[in-house]
């Protein structure tokens, strides 16, 4: 891991923190708040690849745990992890890693469909699996009930998958960082 990799890792952690500064948008009808912050893990994985993307989000998560108010709404500290949404925040690390792994695999023939699929699998399927498991333990409800409870957040995450896919493809043309599947 050379200096450039370390700087990419650090700066993407900073980008994820900056996404948290944007005020959340409340979706019409359902009233579910959607934050830009979960774009961070998707983009880190899709642009830096599995290793660097995962480490970048891990760095961000550790800084939150150390007490920096980097999560959207200025939240931070250990309490965040032990709360109901803690699983989603820890899940971001694995989510970024999985997205990176899939994008690396498809890299040489990356197009809108396999990019969107990679980001959706890592950013929704894997993330919700971890996040909902956590909710079911902390709140003491069944896994199925936790999954149903998380459903309203899907709309926001589908939009974010679309944005991350477009961004990933645009950055791949302008500034490719993943050389090829290893």
């Amino acid at each position, binding site marked *: 891991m050379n*200096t*450039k990799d370390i*700087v990419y890792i*650090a700066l993407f952690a900073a980008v994820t923190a900056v996404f948290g500064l944007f005020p959340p948008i409340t979706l019409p009808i359902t009233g579910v708040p959607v934050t830009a912050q979960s774009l961070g893990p998707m983009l880190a994985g899709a642009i830096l690849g599995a290793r660097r993307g995962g480490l970048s989000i891990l760095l961000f998560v550790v800084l939150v745990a150390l*007490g920096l108010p980097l999560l959207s709404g200025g939240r931070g500290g250990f309490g965040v992890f032990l*709360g109901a949404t803690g699983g989603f925040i820890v899940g971001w690390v694995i989510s970024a890693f999985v997205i990176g792994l899939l994008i690396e695999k498809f890299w040489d023939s990356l197009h809108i469909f396999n990019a969107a699929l990679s980001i959706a699998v890592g950013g929704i399927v894997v993330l919700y699996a971890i996040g909902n498991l956590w909710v079911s333990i902390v709140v003491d*409800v069944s896994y199925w009930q936790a999954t149903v409870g998380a459903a309203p957040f899907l709309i926001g995450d589908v939009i974010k998958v679309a944005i991350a896919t477009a961004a990933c493809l645009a950055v791949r043309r*302008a500034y490719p960082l993943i050389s090829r599947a290893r």
Partner: protein
Amino acid sequence: MIAGLYIDGNSALHRAAAGLKVLALVLLGTGVFLIPDWPVLAVLLVTVFILYPASGFGPRILWAQIRPILWLLALFFAVQLWLNDWQAGLVVIFRLAAIVSFAGLVTLTTRTSDMLAALERAMKPLARFGVNPEKVSLAFSMVLRFIPVIAQIGHEIRDAQRARGLDKSVLALVVPLIIRTLKTADDVADAIDARSFDPD
């Protein structure tokens, strides 16, 4: 730089070692899940609450820790009431409130720099698995340094896109933000290498 959530003071908790406080939090976090009785959890919760004035924090600061999770506590209580009974509801909300208020206390009484130092010490044994503590420290300090820089880049891009009528488009913000961040990263990496940073 980004300010932490630390509030200055000179109580026993302020003076305790950062690593020790984190260990206590982990123990509490595990412990509450092993206690199934609400009266025991209530005593625990009150004990944590008493630690706030003992560390020099007023009720406003304690309330600031609890307020963000209040609606969650209400929701969890309602869910338990619906699925089980009120005792189960109390167990769930007392557990969560105790952990969150103690975690808040650890964060309030520990400087981020002390927490970082504790983390660096804790990472020493990982060196034999190929984790280089100096590289990790470099990454940590760089994040804190670059959050304001990237926020500034974000503002500039938003202004530029507003002039083009694109300020409502997230993509028109995200793509230039990433590309400028990556360019900055290349320059920073060159600058670091030019100063012969080589921990290997």
